[in-house]
């Protein structure tokens, strides 16, 4: 799969950077030589990584990083510069966080291609922690032919029942992909997907039991999350959808626009709903796989 990398450096150095990137057959470099030009390119073309120098006549590389992070926060960025970290002005960018690659290192240019591929392959700059066996988890998720399964009606009905049972504003079934959560069904809201680091489910899926946040305003993991605020989410409870091999592929969740708690019995019930959702998915997949090829088509 071809990957487009935005390379930003001075007119004298840009060719060195982009040719180092294009040494790898799957990487394509697009070039900019100023902050303004880079900002314009980011508006026009999706990129999977940014490699930028620090000093430009019209600003700094951190401004470019800030621009892309405001739109696609999980996109990795590499600051490729001979300016030492101590001389880089970070006071306005304290929580931006980039990979720093010192251009003065003897093997810096060779290392750049490796670093760029590595940060893309490993989603190395995301604002959430993935399980150590994330690759196996994603392989498990990929085994379900979600687009081919007739699950919409079943899950719509299920989320309606869950919302009604708990008397909450929103209930959903979501699958947690590599970079985002995709909602298979959602009662009380019209959501398709959310960037993974903006979701609460990416935290909930790491816990064995049901995760409850009674009021996100009291939890520092979520109270600066503008997406959650914009969606009006105040309280949350999420239960794991666990595949037969033990991998967690999704969540069944209830949300409300006001603070609320969940009793142990309610948590147990939510977990049972999650197991029901998993059974539906599993059965539909089994039926699909059992069909003769011509019928399945």
């Amino acid at each position, binding site marked *: 799969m071809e990957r487009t990398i935005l390379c930003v450096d001075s007119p004298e150095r840009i060719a060195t950077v982009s040719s180092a990137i294009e040494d790898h057959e799957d990487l394509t470099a697009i070039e900019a030589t100023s902050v303004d030009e880079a900002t314009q390119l980011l508006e026009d073309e999706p990129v999977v990584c940014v490699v930028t120098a620090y000093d430009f006549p019209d600003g700094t590389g951190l401004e470019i990083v800030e621009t892309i992070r405001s739109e696609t926060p999980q996109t990795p960025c590499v600051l490729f510069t001979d300016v030492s970290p*101590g001389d880089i002005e970070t006071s306005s960018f304290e929580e931006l*966080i980039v990979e*720093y690659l010192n251009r003065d290192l003897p093997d810096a240019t060779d290392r750049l291609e490796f670093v760029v591929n590595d940060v893309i392959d490993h989603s190395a*700059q995301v604002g959430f922690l993935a399980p*150590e066996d994330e690759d196996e988890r994603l392989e498990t998720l990929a085994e379900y032919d979600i687009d081919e399964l007739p699950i919409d009606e079943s899950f719509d009905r299920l989320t309606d029942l869950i919302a009604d049972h708990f008397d909450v504003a929103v209930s959903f079934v979501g699958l947690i992909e590599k970079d985002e959560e995709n909602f298979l069904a959602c009662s009380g809201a019209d959501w398709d997907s959310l960037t993974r*680091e903006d979701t609460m489910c990416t935290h909930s899926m790491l816990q064995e039991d049901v995760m409850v946040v009674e009021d996100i305003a009291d939890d*520092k993991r979520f109270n600066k999350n503008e997406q959650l605020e914009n969606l009006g989410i105040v309280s949350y409870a999420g239960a794991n959808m666990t595949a037969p091999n033990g991998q967690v592929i999704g969540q069944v969740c209830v949300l409300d626009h006001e603070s609320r708690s969940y009793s142990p019995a309610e948590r147990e019930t939510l977990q049972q709903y999650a197991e029901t959702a998993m059974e539906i998915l599993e059965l539909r997949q089994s039926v699909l796989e059992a069909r003769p090829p011509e019928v399945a088509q």
Partner: protein
Amino acid sequence: MSVSGSTAFDVETLPIDRVDDGTSILLTGDDTEALKTVFSRIVAADEDERSIVLATNAGGRAVRRTLRNAKSGAGDRASVLTCEGPDHDDAVTTVDDIGDLTRLGMEFSSLVAASQQSTARFRAGIFLCSTICSEVEDTRSVFRFLNTNFLTELRRGEGIGVCAIDTSADLETDINSMISGMETSFSARIDIKVTGRTDATLTVSGLSGVDETVDVTL
């Protein structure tokens, strides 16, 4: 440039024996002194290694002394990044603001890269990550920092890492929920429970050949 099949790291001062290359350890407990002792015993470098320590609650001289107490000569094989005290020499780098994760991350990665110019093997540590969590605006930034500048270095290089969290700190979150989440991203977890004036029990998971609970003298 990539993970190699190198030999494990010795930790003779704990009943842990050896830690495999690439291992990331989440170290938790509610006693800061006990955390510091166990942390320094794992992170103190042998002769063919370097330690890179991000210290939030101590100056460079104190950190190097603690490492020296854990292992003879280890203080001289350490690079310390801290927000306290002056730069004493090339091995101590200070930053003004522990909440400036962009600066911290760049300095930390730079120290790892510099240490790899002299020896490939390193032991990295953050003491205390809970202090960083309490200083930043958005916890997602801590996770981004750990991914970008800590776990990535362990994945790529020939090293081990320890991230210490003081569970008695007020982190304005459900700390048990946060730690159970973080635990899944690290390859091992050690939880310290102090049982006497100089004794503690370590609950260990994810380290091969180590009992689930081990008693240590601090």
